């Protein structure tokens, strides 16, 4: 079983979705319990990953490789390094919580909802451990199908617009990546990522391939200026969809950068690092201001996601500048590690924020900030969690939000104090929009009658929020295990940055 642990992780939820589907809408509770069982089993399996993965040696482990398409030499190749392990465990963890979160909320065709969630989870795990570029691409694209259905069927009033925009926008980006991969296949005769990483490429080729990759991943992250699908998709998606989207799917973009841009086109990456850094800073500062003026809670958190993901891209590409121009591997390592921690942390924090909004939405069916006020009076326990996650969202020390951002800012200070200055703006803007949101939603007098009727969170919701809170606090207070898990993999990535391919 351990030899095929990764396959098990991918296929367990995907295959597990089939009995859930067959449970049908006639037996919704069976579908719910079955999907919960599958999600828990997947989570347990992913814990074995933590045990089996040796963080001290690093590198790609638990390798599985079978010839898939013989005439093209395509392999069904899976392996994980520390970064993948962290992301996979986060995915399976969030997987349980979204299923618990949707329990009674989704009354219309729950079996289909749960099945789509499970399939999505399996495909996302697959993305995080594929070592063959074509397999990665297929999974990367396939995740659009369940998400399309999730937003389109259980979304808000403008769900059709949002889901079509989401699908076509992201599809648009990734097709250019496909052309780039086919071009690389012509040169290397394989889709194996390790071989492609060793493939010498001229700068011109690298530049073209870099931009092809960048479009694909930048849209997924999403980076400014191709982030416009995200607010729509988030606002219209059902709570669970938003949670998975923010917590896991956005990470696919930055993960792709680590696996494709860094090793395959390092010189172009270094050459254009300034561009990414500038775009990341725009995301951090400008999108922060955009978040400030939002009137829809989900939109606000969606924009704050864009800003926080800006830290991830900043951390990854500032490392380029640090290694190539200043030769300071230590600082680059810090930036890269910060980016990785930020990826995981943002997964939990944004997932928790969207869950909180979902909890309120289920009671009042509105997401407008002006419709709330004084929620703390009727839902004190909920208010406690909400404030905790809000603090994590603005990067309060002691929560996971602080660790990653702080490391990235520190690293960017080494590159240029100006970059650090702009990046540090987030501490003010982030606090501003989050606290102002809390102020308008939680504090004050109850002005709207429907707020007065809101009921305190039930056991199921408490479970979900406690789980998120535990993760956020654990990473904030004691991030060392996570950093240790990813440490050797991150330093290998940083070493790769220094390799010239021309």
């Amino acid at each position: 079983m351990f030899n095929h642990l990764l396959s098990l992780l991918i296929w367990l939820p995907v295959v597990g979705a089939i009995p859930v589907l067959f449970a049908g809408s006639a037996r919704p509770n069976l579908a719910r319990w079955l999907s919960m069982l599958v999600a828990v089993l997947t989570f347990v399996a992913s814990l074995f990953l933590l045990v089996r993965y040796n963080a001290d040696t690093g590198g790609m482990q638990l390798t599985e490789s079978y010839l898939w398409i013989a005439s093209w030499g395509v392999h069904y190749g899976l392996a994980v390094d520390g970064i993948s392990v962290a992301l996979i465990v986060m995915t399976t963890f969030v997987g349980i919580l979204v299923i618990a979160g949707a329990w009674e909320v989704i009354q219309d065709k729950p079996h289909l909802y749960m099945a789509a969630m499970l399939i999505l989870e399996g495909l996302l795990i697959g993305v995080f451990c594929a070592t063959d570029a074509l397999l990665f691409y297929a999974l990367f694209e396939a995740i659009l199908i369940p998400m399309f259905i999730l937003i389109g069927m259980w979304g808000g009033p403008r769900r059709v617009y949002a889901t079509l925009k989401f699908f076509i926008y992201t599809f648009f980006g990734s097709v250019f990546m496909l052309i780039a991969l086919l071009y690389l296949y012509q040169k290397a005769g394989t889709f194996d990522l390790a071989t492609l990483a060793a493939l010498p490429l001229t700068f011109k080729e690298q530049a073209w391939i870099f931009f092809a990759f960048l479009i694909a991943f930048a849209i997924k992250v999403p980076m400014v200026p191709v982030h416009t699908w995200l607010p729509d998709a988030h606002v219209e998606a059902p709570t669970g969809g938003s949670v998975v989207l923010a917590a896991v799917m956005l990470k696919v973009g930055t993960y792709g950068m680590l696996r494709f841009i860094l090793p395959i086109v390092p010189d172009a990456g270094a050459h254009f690092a300034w561009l990414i850094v500038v775009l990341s800073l725009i995301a951090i500062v400008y999108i922060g201001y955009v978040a400030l003026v939002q009137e829809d809670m989900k939109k606000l958190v969606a924009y704050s996601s864009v800003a926080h993901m800006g830290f991830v891209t900043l951390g990854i590409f500032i490392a380029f500048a640090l290694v190539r121009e200043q030769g300071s591997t230590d600082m680059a390592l810090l930036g890269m590690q910060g980016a990785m921690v930020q990826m995981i942390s943002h997964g939990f924090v944004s997932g928790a924020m969207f869950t909180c909004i979902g909890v309120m939405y289920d009671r009042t069916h509105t997401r407008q900030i002006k419709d709330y006020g004084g929620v703390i009076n009727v839902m004190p326990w909920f208010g406690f969690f909400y404030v905790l996650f809000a603090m994590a969202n603005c990067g309060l020390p002691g929560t996971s939000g602080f660790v990653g951002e702080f490391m990235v800012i520190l690293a960017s200070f080494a590159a240029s104090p100006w970059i650090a200055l702009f990046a540090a703006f987030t501490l003010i803007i982030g606090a501003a929009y989050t606290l102002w949101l809390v102020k308008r939603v939680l504090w004050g007098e109850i002005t709207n009658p429907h707020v007065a009727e809101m009921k305190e969170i039930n056991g199921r919701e408490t479970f979900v929020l406690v789980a998120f809170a535990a993760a956020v606090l654990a990473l904030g207070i004691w991030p060392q295990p996570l950093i240790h898990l990813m440490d050797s993999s991150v330093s290998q990535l940083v070493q790769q940055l220094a390799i010239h391919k021309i």
Partner: protein
Amino acid sequence: MPTLNDILILLPEFYLVAAACLLLLLDAFMKPAQRPLLHWISIAVLLVAIYLVIAGQPDRAVTAFGSMFVRDDVAEIIKVFALGTTAMIFVYARPYLIDRKLLGGEFYTLMIFAVIGIMLLVSAGNLVTVYLGLELLSLSSYALVALNREAKLPSEAAIKYFVLGALASGMLLYGMSMVYGASGMGGTPTLELAQLSHVMGYTTAPTLLLFGLIFMIVGIGFKLGAAPFHMWIPDVYQGAPTPVTTFVAAGSKLAAFGMAYRLLADGMGDLAQHWQLILAVLAVLSLAIGNLVAIVQTNLKRMLAYSTISHMGYLLLGLSAAGPEGYAAALFYAICYALMGVAAFGVILAMSRAGFECEEIADFKGLARKAPWMAFLMLLAMFSLAGVPPLFGFWAKVLVLEAAIHADMLWLAIVGIVFAIVGLYYYLYVIKVMYFDAPEEGGALQVQQDKPLRLVLSLNALSLLALGLYWGPLLAWCRRAFGV
């Protein structure tokens, strides 16, 4: 004198001709109560033909009747899939035809004759055989389109198909005559495809040969339905009875690929550098026109017609690569398109009833609530047509794009992929209608209760998923046929 060996090589074809004639007789002499048997007999006939094709397949290419007829792996693959899709269409068509009182011997016989046409066409070793096969296929198709004599739309479609088809046949024939003429200038005139490939080397009239080539490409373009020779496609697709549309979409596209391969690769291989660019231009036009015009369609059959045009653009992408890998990719694409097309039209057939053609996109509103399984099958077909992994259609697209890049036509691959994004919209729109829209009050949606139809259609659509997960053997088969 034909030898026994010649006849053995053509055994599947001879067998089918005999069977078709026998079916005609049966139809005439059977008691009305026994007529339904005809359906099962016809399917059995096709299945036996598939067996004969596979079982009698020689190890390497052989020719019969003085190289009029070639039996090689390429022909084998096309024949197997043409026969298979036709058998599937028979299953899907039965309830539809019964509801409209069109079920009769002529449908089965004409279909089988059309398939014989395909088989001759894709095994042609000589210009005459190409023409013979093409006409047998075309004439049967014209009659099939007009199967419903009473209705106006099918008759209109049949006339349009016939007039334009005759024109295209004329062009093809004219081109053939020029090629024949050119082969006679400076050498012995020949109609044999294998000989024709050397004509460029010796002929004293290369211009004539090139003109002939261009006229032949017009004929091929018409049969493929590639823009700008696509005018007939939307009307025929919409007007013809849906089972016939399915056949025109699936079977005759396989045939068109075979014809293009025989004429261009076998016969005009030396002129590849000349026809390569023409095909590339046809591909770009088809991709653009097909995808853009499909967006505004409200009739699903018509939308699928334009989508066919765009798919032929992808097929041409592979052909224009003009190498064995490109041909293999194009053949793979043709097979993939046949399976996807049959599945998509199969769902339309399964949802149609007496007095209700479920063919407007709006008719599918809320299908996911009324008939979740059918909606799921259609979803698979649509995502596959759109080229979204992990479905079969995605890999077919990847293969032709790779072939184009391999042939140093990166620009063509980029055009192809850009139009894939455009095409995505209208496929997603169908899914949107099925899944995200509420069904209309008292809507007419109802699934045919025909068990074989549901079973075969399910297998058909699920095969798009299965082949999407594991397409290696099929690709290997296609590549082996072209010696890659």
